[in-house]
Protein backbone atom coordinates (compact mmCIF):
# COMPACT_ATOMS: atom_id res chain seq x y z
CA UNK A 1 0.00 0.00 0.00
CA UNK A 2 2.47 2.64 -1.15
CA UNK A 3 -0.10 5.44 -1.04
CA UNK A 4 -0.24 5.41 2.76
CA UNK A 5 1.93 7.44 5.07
CA UNK A 6 5.16 5.56 5.48
CA UNK A 7 7.15 5.09 8.63
CA UNK A 8 10.65 6.36 7.97
CA UNK A 9 13.00 3.74 9.35
CA UNK A 10 15.63 6.20 10.51
CA UNK A 11 13.35 8.84 11.89
CA UNK A 12 10.08 7.35 12.91
CA UNK A 13 6.97 8.96 11.41
CA UNK A 14 8.93 11.98 10.25
CA UNK A 15 7.10 12.08 6.94
CA UNK A 16 3.73 12.03 8.59
CA UNK A 17 4.27 14.54 11.36
CA UNK A 18 6.63 17.09 9.83
CA UNK A 19 4.19 19.06 7.76
CA UNK A 20 0.72 18.23 9.02
CA UNK A 21 -0.72 20.17 11.93
CA UNK A 22 -3.96 20.76 13.80
CA UNK A 23 -6.49 22.37 11.43
CA UNK A 24 -7.94 24.45 14.27
CA UNK A 25 -4.91 25.96 16.06
CA UNK A 26 -2.02 24.79 13.79
CA UNK A 27 -0.41 23.09 16.81
CA UNK A 28 1.94 20.10 16.47
CA UNK A 29 0.39 16.65 16.39
CA UNK A 30 1.60 13.48 18.11
CA UNK A 31 0.73 10.01 16.96
CA UNK A 32 -0.50 7.23 19.26
CA UNK A 33 -2.26 3.85 19.05
CA UNK A 34 -0.81 3.42 15.60
CA UNK A 35 -1.14 0.23 13.59
CA UNK A 36 1.19 -0.51 10.72
CA UNK A 37 1.26 -2.74 7.71
CA UNK A 38 4.52 -3.13 5.78
CA UNK A 39 6.02 -0.06 7.45
CA UNK A 40 3.03 2.14 6.68
CA UNK A 41 0.59 3.61 9.15
CA UNK A 42 -2.92 2.34 8.56
CA UNK A 43 -4.65 3.61 11.69
CA UNK A 44 -3.94 5.65 14.79
CA UNK A 45 -4.82 8.79 16.71
CA UNK A 46 -3.28 12.22 16.14
CA UNK A 47 -3.50 14.51 19.17
CA UNK A 48 -2.84 18.25 19.08
CA UNK A 49 -0.22 19.29 21.63
CA UNK A 50 -1.70 22.76 21.89
CA UNK A 51 -5.50 22.42 21.98
CA UNK A 52 -5.89 18.72 22.70
CA UNK A 53 -8.18 17.98 19.73
CA UNK A 54 -7.91 14.40 18.53
CA UNK A 55 -8.01 13.19 14.93
CA UNK A 56 -8.22 9.58 13.74
CA UNK A 57 -6.20 7.95 10.98
CA UNK A 58 -8.51 5.50 9.21
CA UNK A 59 -7.50 3.18 6.40
CA UNK A 60 -4.29 5.14 6.04
CA UNK A 61 -5.92 8.56 5.64
CA UNK A 62 -5.64 11.13 8.45
CA UNK A 63 -9.04 12.71 9.12
CA UNK A 64 -8.08 16.31 9.86
CA UNK A 65 -11.52 17.82 9.40
CA UNK A 66 -12.10 20.35 12.18
CA UNK A 67 -14.24 18.81 14.95
CA UNK A 68 -17.92 19.72 14.64
CA UNK A 69 -18.85 22.50 17.02
Amino acid sequence: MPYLWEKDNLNMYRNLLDLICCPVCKGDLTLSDEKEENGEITSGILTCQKCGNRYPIEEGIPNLLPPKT
Partner: protein
Amino acid sequence: MEKNFQDHFGKHAVEYSKSESHKSGSDLKQLMEELSLKGNETCIDMAAGTGFTAAELAKRAKLVYAIDATPEMLNQARKLAEENKLTNIKFILGRVENVPLTDRSADVITCRRAAHHFPDKIEFLKEARRLLKIGGKIGIVDMVRNEEDSEDVRNRFEILRDTSHVYAPKITEWKRYMSIAGFKNINVLETTERYSYERWLYPLKIGGPEDVQIRKFMSSMSDEFLRKGGFDPLEMTFDKKRMIATAQNW
Protein backbone atom coordinates in the same frame (compact mmCIF):
# COMPACT_ATOMS: atom_id res chain seq x y z
CA MET B 1 -23.69 24.31 2.48
CA GLU B 2 -21.29 21.79 4.02
CA LYS B 3 -24.02 19.15 4.10
CA ASN B 4 -24.90 19.97 0.48
CA PHE B 5 -21.45 19.27 -0.88
CA GLN B 6 -20.98 16.19 1.29
CA ASP B 7 -24.30 14.92 -0.12
CA HIS B 8 -23.53 15.82 -3.73
CA PHE B 9 -19.97 14.47 -3.85
CA GLY B 10 -20.65 11.52 -1.56
CA LYS B 11 -23.42 10.45 -3.94
CA HIS B 12 -21.60 11.17 -7.22
CA ALA B 13 -17.97 10.25 -6.38
CA VAL B 14 -17.89 7.31 -8.81
CA GLU B 15 -19.37 9.33 -11.70
CA TYR B 16 -16.82 12.10 -11.15
CA SER B 17 -14.03 9.52 -11.10
CA LYS B 18 -15.16 8.37 -14.56
CA SER B 19 -15.63 11.85 -16.03
CA GLU B 20 -13.51 12.18 -19.19
CA SER B 21 -13.75 15.95 -18.90
CA HIS B 22 -12.32 15.99 -15.37
CA LYS B 23 -9.69 13.41 -16.31
CA SER B 24 -8.37 14.79 -19.58
CA GLY B 25 -9.94 18.23 -20.12
CA SER B 26 -7.63 20.64 -21.92
CA ASP B 27 -7.73 22.86 -18.81
CA LEU B 28 -5.65 20.27 -16.94
CA LYS B 29 -2.98 20.23 -19.65
CA GLN B 30 -2.93 24.03 -19.74
CA LEU B 31 -2.64 24.24 -15.96
CA MET B 32 0.40 21.92 -16.05
CA GLU B 33 1.98 24.04 -18.79
CA GLU B 34 1.43 27.23 -16.80
CA LEU B 35 2.97 25.72 -13.65
CA SER B 36 6.00 24.28 -15.53
CA LEU B 37 7.15 22.06 -12.67
CA LYS B 38 10.80 21.11 -12.39
CA GLY B 39 10.51 17.94 -10.33
CA ASN B 40 11.62 19.07 -6.87
CA GLU B 41 8.40 20.78 -5.75
CA THR B 42 6.09 20.08 -2.84
CA CYS B 43 2.52 20.64 -4.02
CA ILE B 44 -0.87 20.90 -2.35
CA ASP B 45 -3.97 20.14 -4.37
CA MET B 46 -6.87 21.79 -2.55
CA ALA B 47 -10.31 20.18 -2.91
CA ALA B 48 -8.60 17.37 -4.81
CA GLY B 49 -11.82 15.48 -5.56
CA THR B 50 -11.19 12.25 -7.44
CA GLY B 51 -7.52 13.12 -7.83
CA PHE B 52 -6.91 13.79 -11.56
CA THR B 53 -4.99 17.01 -10.87
CA ALA B 54 -3.01 15.50 -7.99
CA ALA B 55 -1.99 12.59 -10.26
CA GLU B 56 -0.70 14.93 -12.98
CA LEU B 57 1.21 16.95 -10.36
CA ALA B 58 2.68 13.74 -8.90
CA LYS B 59 4.10 12.78 -12.30
CA ARG B 60 5.97 16.09 -12.42
CA ALA B 61 6.80 17.04 -8.81
CA LYS B 62 8.41 15.54 -5.72
CA LEU B 63 5.46 15.31 -3.35
CA VAL B 64 1.74 16.08 -3.50
CA TYR B 65 -0.70 16.54 -0.65
CA ALA B 66 -4.23 15.86 -1.88
CA ILE B 67 -6.79 17.46 0.41
CA ASP B 68 -10.53 16.98 0.23
CA ALA B 69 -13.43 17.06 2.67
CA THR B 70 -15.38 14.11 1.25
CA PRO B 71 -14.09 10.58 2.04
CA GLU B 72 -15.81 9.02 -0.99
CA MET B 73 -13.98 11.38 -3.37
CA LEU B 74 -10.63 10.76 -1.67
CA ASN B 75 -11.13 6.99 -1.94
CA GLN B 76 -11.53 7.39 -5.70
CA ALA B 77 -8.39 9.56 -5.77
CA ARG B 78 -6.46 6.87 -3.95
CA LYS B 79 -7.61 4.23 -6.45
CA LEU B 80 -6.42 6.44 -9.30
CA ALA B 81 -2.99 6.86 -7.65
CA GLU B 82 -2.72 3.10 -7.21
CA GLU B 83 -3.67 2.44 -10.83
CA ASN B 84 -1.00 4.88 -11.98
CA LYS B 85 1.55 3.50 -9.48
CA LEU B 86 2.08 6.96 -8.04
CA THR B 87 3.54 6.71 -4.55
CA ASN B 88 4.26 10.39 -3.93
CA ILE B 89 0.69 11.52 -3.19
CA LYS B 90 -0.42 11.82 0.43
CA PHE B 91 -4.14 11.99 1.10
CA ILE B 92 -5.66 14.09 3.86
CA LEU B 93 -9.29 14.58 4.79
CA GLY B 94 -9.47 18.29 5.46
CA ARG B 95 -11.08 21.58 4.60
CA VAL B 96 -9.68 24.27 2.31
CA GLU B 97 -10.45 27.01 4.84
CA ASN B 98 -8.43 25.19 7.54
CA VAL B 99 -5.75 23.22 5.74
CA PRO B 100 -3.95 21.03 8.29
CA LEU B 101 -0.47 21.82 6.95
CA THR B 102 2.14 24.15 8.39
CA ASP B 103 2.93 27.66 7.08
CA ARG B 104 5.17 27.93 4.00
CA SER B 105 5.04 24.21 3.34
CA ALA B 106 4.39 24.29 -0.43
CA ASP B 107 6.04 25.47 -3.63
CA VAL B 108 2.85 25.05 -5.63
CA ILE B 109 -0.85 25.05 -4.77
CA THR B 110 -3.54 23.97 -7.21
CA CYS B 111 -7.29 24.05 -7.07
CA ARG B 112 -9.13 22.81 -10.13
CA ARG B 113 -12.88 22.98 -10.80
CA ALA B 114 -13.70 23.44 -7.12
CA ALA B 115 -13.55 27.09 -6.12
CA HIS B 116 -17.18 27.71 -7.12
CA HIS B 117 -18.06 25.67 -4.02
CA PHE B 118 -16.20 28.00 -1.67
CA PRO B 119 -18.33 30.59 0.11
CA ASP B 120 -15.39 32.96 0.68
CA LYS B 121 -12.83 33.11 -2.14
CA ILE B 122 -10.60 35.63 -0.35
CA GLU B 123 -10.42 33.43 2.74
CA PHE B 124 -9.40 30.50 0.52
CA LEU B 125 -6.76 32.62 -1.23
CA LYS B 126 -5.36 33.87 2.08
CA GLU B 127 -5.12 30.30 3.34
CA ALA B 128 -3.27 29.39 0.13
CA ARG B 129 -0.84 32.24 0.72
CA ARG B 130 -0.18 31.05 4.27
CA LEU B 131 0.76 27.63 2.88
CA LEU B 132 2.96 28.89 0.03
CA LYS B 133 6.66 29.57 0.30
CA ILE B 134 7.78 33.02 -0.79
CA GLY B 135 7.90 32.92 -4.57
CA GLY B 136 5.52 29.93 -4.60
CA LYS B 137 2.85 29.67 -7.22
CA ILE B 138 -0.90 29.11 -7.14
CA GLY B 139 -2.84 27.70 -10.10
CA ILE B 140 -6.62 27.91 -10.07
CA VAL B 141 -8.88 26.47 -12.74
CA ASP B 142 -12.58 27.08 -12.46
CA MET B 143 -15.73 28.00 -14.28
CA VAL B 144 -16.36 31.72 -14.53
CA ARG B 145 -19.45 33.67 -15.46
CA ASN B 146 -19.58 36.13 -18.33
CA GLU B 147 -18.60 39.72 -17.67
CA GLU B 148 -21.97 40.80 -19.13
CA ASP B 149 -24.01 38.42 -16.94
CA SER B 150 -25.54 41.34 -15.05
CA GLU B 151 -28.44 39.37 -13.57
CA ASP B 152 -26.15 36.55 -12.36
CA VAL B 153 -28.19 34.07 -14.37
CA ARG B 154 -25.32 31.61 -14.64
CA ASN B 155 -24.92 31.00 -10.94
CA ARG B 156 -28.66 30.50 -10.59
CA PHE B 157 -28.48 27.80 -13.28
CA GLU B 158 -25.53 26.10 -11.62
CA ILE B 159 -27.16 26.08 -8.17
CA LEU B 160 -30.23 24.35 -9.62
CA ARG B 161 -27.98 21.67 -11.12
CA ASP B 162 -25.74 21.25 -8.08
CA THR B 163 -27.01 22.48 -4.71
CA SER B 164 -23.42 22.63 -3.44
CA HIS B 165 -22.54 25.27 -6.06
CA VAL B 166 -22.05 28.58 -4.26
CA TYR B 167 -20.73 31.22 -6.63
CA ALA B 168 -18.63 31.39 -9.80
CA PRO B 169 -17.22 34.93 -10.11
CA LYS B 170 -16.30 36.83 -13.28
CA ILE B 171 -12.61 36.90 -14.24
CA THR B 172 -12.39 40.54 -13.22
CA GLU B 173 -13.73 39.60 -9.78
CA TRP B 174 -11.14 36.81 -9.45
CA LYS B 175 -8.33 39.20 -10.34
CA ARG B 176 -9.53 41.57 -7.64
CA TYR B 177 -9.79 38.79 -5.03
CA MET B 178 -6.28 37.59 -5.82
CA SER B 179 -4.83 41.01 -5.51
CA ILE B 180 -6.72 41.69 -2.24
CA ALA B 181 -5.29 38.42 -0.86
CA GLY B 182 -1.80 39.70 -1.72
CA PHE B 183 -0.88 37.67 -4.80
CA LYS B 184 1.39 39.17 -7.44
CA ASN B 185 2.10 38.40 -11.12
CA ILE B 186 -1.53 37.44 -11.71
CA ASN B 187 -2.01 35.84 -15.11
CA VAL B 188 -5.35 34.58 -16.45
CA LEU B 189 -6.07 32.43 -19.51
CA GLU B 190 -9.64 31.96 -20.65
CA THR B 191 -11.18 28.99 -22.47
CA THR B 192 -14.70 28.45 -23.74
CA GLU B 193 -16.27 25.14 -24.73
CA ARG B 194 -19.80 24.60 -25.94
CA TYR B 195 -21.74 21.97 -24.00
CA SER B 196 -25.03 20.39 -24.95
CA TYR B 197 -27.64 20.74 -22.22
CA GLU B 198 -27.34 17.02 -21.45
CA ARG B 199 -23.58 17.17 -21.08
CA TRP B 200 -23.80 20.24 -18.88
CA LEU B 201 -26.31 18.43 -16.67
CA TYR B 202 -23.98 15.43 -16.11
CA PRO B 203 -23.81 13.54 -13.70
CA LEU B 204 -27.51 14.35 -13.34
CA LYS B 205 -29.98 13.01 -15.83
CA ILE B 206 -32.66 14.31 -18.17
CA GLY B 207 -36.05 13.78 -16.57
CA GLY B 208 -34.68 13.98 -13.02
CA PRO B 209 -36.02 16.50 -10.47
CA GLU B 210 -33.18 18.98 -11.13
CA ASP B 211 -33.85 18.89 -14.88
CA VAL B 212 -37.49 19.77 -14.24
CA GLN B 213 -36.53 22.70 -11.98
CA ILE B 214 -33.98 24.00 -14.49
CA ARG B 215 -36.47 23.96 -17.37
CA LYS B 216 -38.95 25.84 -15.20
CA PHE B 217 -36.27 28.46 -14.49
CA MET B 218 -35.41 28.73 -18.21
CA SER B 219 -38.99 29.45 -19.16
CA SER B 220 -39.18 32.18 -16.52
CA MET B 221 -36.20 34.14 -17.93
CA SER B 222 -35.99 36.24 -21.08
CA ASP B 223 -33.77 34.97 -23.91
CA GLU B 224 -31.57 38.03 -23.50
CA PHE B 225 -30.70 37.26 -19.90
CA LEU B 226 -30.25 33.56 -20.67
CA ARG B 227 -27.74 34.45 -23.41
CA LYS B 228 -25.83 36.79 -21.09
CA GLY B 229 -25.60 33.84 -18.69
CA GLY B 230 -24.04 31.72 -21.44
CA PHE B 231 -27.10 29.68 -22.38
CA ASP B 232 -28.45 29.54 -25.92
CA PRO B 233 -32.18 28.78 -25.61
CA LEU B 234 -32.61 27.87 -29.29
CA GLU B 235 -29.76 25.40 -29.54
CA MET B 236 -30.08 24.28 -25.90
CA THR B 237 -26.34 24.71 -25.37
CA PHE B 238 -24.20 26.23 -22.67
CA ASP B 239 -20.95 28.08 -23.09
CA LYS B 240 -18.67 26.61 -20.47
CA LYS B 241 -16.18 29.34 -19.77
CA ARG B 242 -13.17 28.60 -17.58
CA MET B 243 -10.15 30.48 -16.36
CA ILE B 244 -6.69 29.13 -15.77
CA ALA B 245 -5.28 31.64 -13.31
CA THR B 246 -1.78 31.63 -11.90
CA ALA B 247 -0.16 34.00 -9.43
CA GLN B 248 2.79 34.22 -7.11
CA ASN B 249 3.20 34.74 -3.40
CA TRP B 250 5.67 37.58 -2.98
